[in-house]
């Protein structure tokens, strides 16, 4: 069968149209989702790696290097085996920071636009031979099938079709998260097609040429014949090749795009690590049978095209068609995807850093069209190189030249992943030297050779005399050496060190807790409007907020820092990290602060949580311990809140959220002053106070009743190398305790009344007796004036009884029930006098003398009855401890904002061994039945409720070794001293 170029081109167009339709149907959702999004589609799409270089070139490689051709497949397989160490970190980085290419990654890590520029330049220069190779493969095969073909117009036509394909399915949107589902499906289709085609050709070679499996074995034995024997593979050649192809998933722009951009699903990357090698194995398997079949049939074509000539020699046109379309498929896939990814790289690092678009126009549209234009430029340059190369070089030479150039990026990648000390100067030095050696020893000689020689197909210079492996190792060695030495002996900037923490796999991304100048989302939009224009600024801020799940009214410093990071990442996806970093650093700056930089603890914890599935061994155990402590802290039955020195909340546990009604997500990262007013007032006043412990009451949120909270605080523990910062506050709900305590107070009050009962009976009995006598006298008195006098006396006695009863009733009921307190300004002297009056009802009242020396002008804000309970308890104890006729003094004086009240007796004093326990509940030294042990405890509690403090000193009269002095400090009420009850 004759193959005319017209027929060939028609069939080619038909096949490319089929790819178009496949992509279109997938893009429009006409293909069932469970098929279009099947993980196998992703795995097959990775088969784009097996370009025409693998499809045709691997047979040529096998011809020259025997099993050395396996490096092409095993290199990628090894990289995928260790994907958790090599690929996963880059996947995470590219997802988190919207890094679309290796140049983005380097610019992000080494913090320099020149790094991105140089990387892009290197990748473009190295990839052009690879893309020219694809065009050459197509035209070579057409020329081979129809020698009368005019190659260059056909190549141009195919390039234009691929350009249209790339633009239609690879540059439809500018969003950094853009996925090319149609393109992916088409790539999977073409990968499957070329795999099936290659396997069939291999099968045909085995069955048609050798007849059977045994036939191959017999032939392979014959292959020992020096005529067909391949030269032995040298280890240096093997390891040079392996180095090139191990680095392939990182340095090939189209593989980078597939592995790190087209899927956010890590399980697919994990699946690729074992499934993709199966694909590679199947692609590698037919190579030797095809080679031997070509040799066996005496093919006169280049070994690279044995798969094509097999059908011709066997007179099986369908095999030739299959081989041709498989090759076309392999070449088309890489051309489309590589041009898309290289265009994106070129825009971010060759255009945008040096040309600022006008943001008043629709910048998204501008970016999209520039990307489309750049796709055209990439394909155009590939075509131009193809013309310059003039089909002189074989595919293997072109492929090895391209891979050697790309290999120069390997030291930079290793530095990025494993060495925090690497810096941009080292990277630029190493890469420049490596590229210069590559260009001078491989690329330029190849071009020179092509320009000097005529149009002929012959094995090029590269595989002869093992020139290429020497160049590969020398260029890589000098590159790596320069990279290390320059990095070691030059200064690494702070930005690079910070980026190293993010990139190096042994580090965790540690951000600093720096205050931003922009205080809320509106200010973000305002400031970003200047460089981006209002529309784009709003759109980017809202997109970042949506990603983070934050509201438009977000104001928390932590949230604003994350918003800034996300905006930077999104802009990085649009314009590259260099432009994004510069833009964000300028328009969303941090405030200049004298304070030492602090880790953003919450962010740090979240990152650690994200990593913990990857940890093994001791690191995993330590992380388990960390999470255990974290959970313990979080589930403590007491509210815990950790505050930085600037008031930012770093920790807000579950009970804290329950008690305050402020959920953790709203509290963490907020400043204290942004909490609801009641909680801010409470926490802020506590922090500003001197005391480390405080009990306060707080109205309920529903306005009904009150709750009591006990606050404790302690400064953060100082770490070895960092100054002290922040405070931990514990918040305990004491409401139930307080209600119980209130019950206790009431019981104690009733007990006091009980103890007073005998005295009260006596006090009431006397006037009642008097009234009785007066009433009897009344019968015998007829004089109205005398009757009036007796009546007045009866009323006087009745009034005395009423006063006693009323004071008892007041005392008994004060503060009972719901525990509500009602603090009112009240003269301190009167409080003390009320207590003395009540005690005077006691039968023992006459034994001691109470002297109230409290000044009249001292007013306290108090609940008078509860405060009088304090003095009743203190004076009662003093009376019990004092000998008969002794004096008990109550003195008070003002001291700044406080009233200092002293209750001094001359009793037996308190033994030193019990003085530390006298305020403990149920502690008593009295006989059983005479004391409950609650008196001083309640007195202490009541004083604290009044924001006061009580202390004891015994002996009060040291010289004599007797007496006790209770000192009570109460806040004075000065604002309304005239108010009295």
């Amino acid at each position, binding site marked *: 069968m004759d193959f005319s170029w017209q027929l060939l081109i028609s069939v080619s167009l038909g096949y490319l149209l089929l790819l178009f339709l496949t992509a279109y149907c997938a893009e429009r959702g006409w293909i069932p989702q469970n098929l279009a999004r099947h993980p196998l589609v992703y795995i097959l799409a990775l088969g784009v790696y097996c370009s025409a270089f693998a499809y045709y070139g691997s047979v040529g490689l096998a011809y020259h290097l025997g099993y050395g051709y396996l490096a092409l497949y095993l290199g990628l397989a090894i990289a995928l085996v260790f994907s958790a160490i090599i690929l996963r970190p880059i996947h995470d980085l590219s997802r988190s920071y919207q890094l679309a290419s290796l140049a983005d990654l380097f610019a992000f890590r080494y913090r320099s636009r020149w790094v991105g520029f140089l990387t892009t330049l290197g990748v473009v220069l190295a990839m052009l031979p690879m893309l020219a190779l694809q065009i050459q493969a197509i035209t070579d095969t057409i020329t081979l099938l129809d020698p009368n073909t005019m190659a260059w117009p056909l190549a141009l036509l195919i390039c234009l079709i691929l350009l249209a394909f790339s633009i239609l399915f690879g540059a439809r949107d500018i969003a950094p998260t853009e996925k090319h589902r149609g393109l992916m499906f088409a790539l999977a289709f073409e990968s499957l097609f070329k795999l099936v085609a290659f396997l069939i050709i291999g099968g045909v070679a085995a069955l048609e040429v050798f007849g059977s499996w045994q036939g*191959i074995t017999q032939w392979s034995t014959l292959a020992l014949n020096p005529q067909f024997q391949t030269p032995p593979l040298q280890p240096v050649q093997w390891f040079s090749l392996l180095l090139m192809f191990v680095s392939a998933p990182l340095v090939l722009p189209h593989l980078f795009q597939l592995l790190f951009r087209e899927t956010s699903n890590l399980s697919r990357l994990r699946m690729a690590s074992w499934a993709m*090698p199966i694909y590679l194995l199947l692609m*590698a398997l037919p190579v030797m049978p095809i080679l031997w079949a070509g040799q066996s049939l005496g093919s006169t074509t280049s070994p690279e095209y044995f798969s094509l000539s097999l059908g011709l020699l066997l007179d099986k046109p369908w095999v030739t068609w299959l081989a041709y379309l498989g090759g076309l498929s392999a070449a088309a896939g890489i051309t489309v995807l590589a041009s898309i990814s290289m265009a994106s790289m070129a825009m971010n690092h060759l255009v945008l850093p040096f040309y600022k678009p006008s943001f008043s126009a629709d910048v998204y549209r501008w970016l999209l069209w520039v990307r489309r234009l750049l796709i055209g430029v990439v394909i155009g340059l590939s075509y131009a190189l193809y013309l310059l190369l003039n089909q002189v070089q074989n595919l293997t030479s072109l492929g090895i030249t391209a891979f050697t150039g790309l290999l120069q990026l390997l030291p930079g990648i290793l530095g990025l992943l494993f060495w925090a000390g690497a810096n941009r100067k080292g990277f630029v030095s190493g890469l420049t030297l490596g590229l210069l050696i590559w260009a001078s020893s491989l690329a330029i000689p190849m071009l020179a050779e092509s320009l000097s020689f005529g149009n002929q197909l012959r094995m090029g210079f590269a595989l002869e005399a093992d020139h290429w492996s020497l160049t590969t190792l020398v260029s890589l060695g000098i590159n790596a050496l320069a990279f290390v030495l320059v990095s070691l002996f030059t200064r690494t900037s702070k930005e690079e060190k910070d980026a190293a923490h993010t990139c190096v796999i042994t580090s965790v991304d540690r951000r600093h807790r720096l205050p931003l100048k922009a205080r809320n989302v509106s200010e973000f939009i305002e400031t970003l409007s200047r460089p981006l224009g209002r529309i784009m600024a709003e759109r980017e801020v809202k997109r970042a907020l949506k990603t983070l799940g934050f509201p438009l009214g977000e104001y928390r410093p932590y949230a604003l820092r994350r918003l800034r990071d996300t905006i930077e990442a999104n802009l990085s996806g649009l314009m590259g990290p260099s432009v994004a970093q510069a833009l964000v650093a300028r328009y969303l700056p941090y405030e200049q602060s004298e304070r030492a930089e602090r880790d953003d603890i919450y962010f740090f914890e979240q990152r650690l949580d994200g990593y913990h599935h990857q940890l093994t061994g001791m690191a995993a155990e330590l992380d388990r311990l960390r999470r255990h402590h974290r959970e313990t802290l979080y589930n403590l039955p007491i509210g815990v809140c950790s505050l930085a020195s600037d008031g930012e909340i770093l920790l807000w546990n579950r009970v804290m959220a329950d008690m305050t009604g402020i959920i953790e997500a709203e509290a963490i990262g907020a400043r204290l002053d942004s909490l609801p007013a009641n909680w801010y007032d409470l926490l802020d006043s506590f922090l500003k106070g001197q005391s480390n412990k405080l009990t306060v009451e707080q109205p309920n949120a529903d306005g009904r009743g009150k709750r009591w909270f006990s606050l404790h605080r302690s400064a953060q523990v100082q770490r070895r190398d960092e100054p002290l910062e922040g405070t931990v506050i514990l918040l305990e709900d004491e409401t139930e305790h307080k209600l119980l305590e209130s019950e206790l107070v009431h019981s104690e009050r009733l007990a006091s009344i009980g103890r007073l009962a005998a005295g009260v009976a006596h006090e009431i009995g006397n006037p009642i007796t008097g009234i009785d006598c007066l009433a009897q006298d009344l019968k015998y008195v007829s004089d109205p004036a005398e009757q009036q006098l007796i009546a007045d006396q009866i009323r006087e006695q009745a009034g005395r009884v009423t006063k006693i009863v009323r004071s008892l009733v007041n005392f008994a009921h004060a503060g009972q029930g719901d525990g509500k307190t009602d603090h009112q300004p009240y003269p301190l002297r009167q409080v003390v006098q009320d207590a003395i009056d009540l005690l005077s009802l006691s039968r023992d009242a006459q034994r001691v003398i109470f002297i109230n020396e409290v000044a009249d002008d001292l007013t306290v804000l108090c609940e008078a009855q509860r405060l009088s309970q304090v003095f009743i308890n203190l004076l009662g104890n003093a009376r019990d401890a004092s000998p008969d006729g002794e004096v008990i003094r109550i003195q008070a004086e003002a001291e700044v904002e406080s009233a200092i009240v002293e209750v001094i007796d001359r009793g037996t004093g308190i033994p030193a061994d019990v003085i530390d326990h006298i305020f403990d509940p149920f502690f008593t030294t009295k006989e059983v039945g005479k004391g409950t042990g609650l008196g001083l405890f309640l007195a202490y509690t009541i004083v604290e409720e009044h924001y006061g403090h009580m202390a004891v000193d015994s002996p009060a009269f040291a010289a004599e070794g007797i007496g006790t002095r209770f000192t009570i400090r109460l806040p004075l009420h000065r604002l309304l001293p005239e108010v009295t009850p």
Partner: protein
Amino acid sequence: MSLSLLLKLLILPFYLLLPFSLDGTETVQLWYLPFLIWTGLILVNALAEYLRSRR
């Protein structure tokens, strides 16, 4: 070190030396041997990935 990583490190030398697996046999009758070894390595790697996914 996890078992999955250990398995991967164990198979690495086989990957690195795969093309030399026929050296010393003085024959290429077992031309498919590298592919058989490779298949074994794929299975071991799949096992390692399975172990990793269970962690």
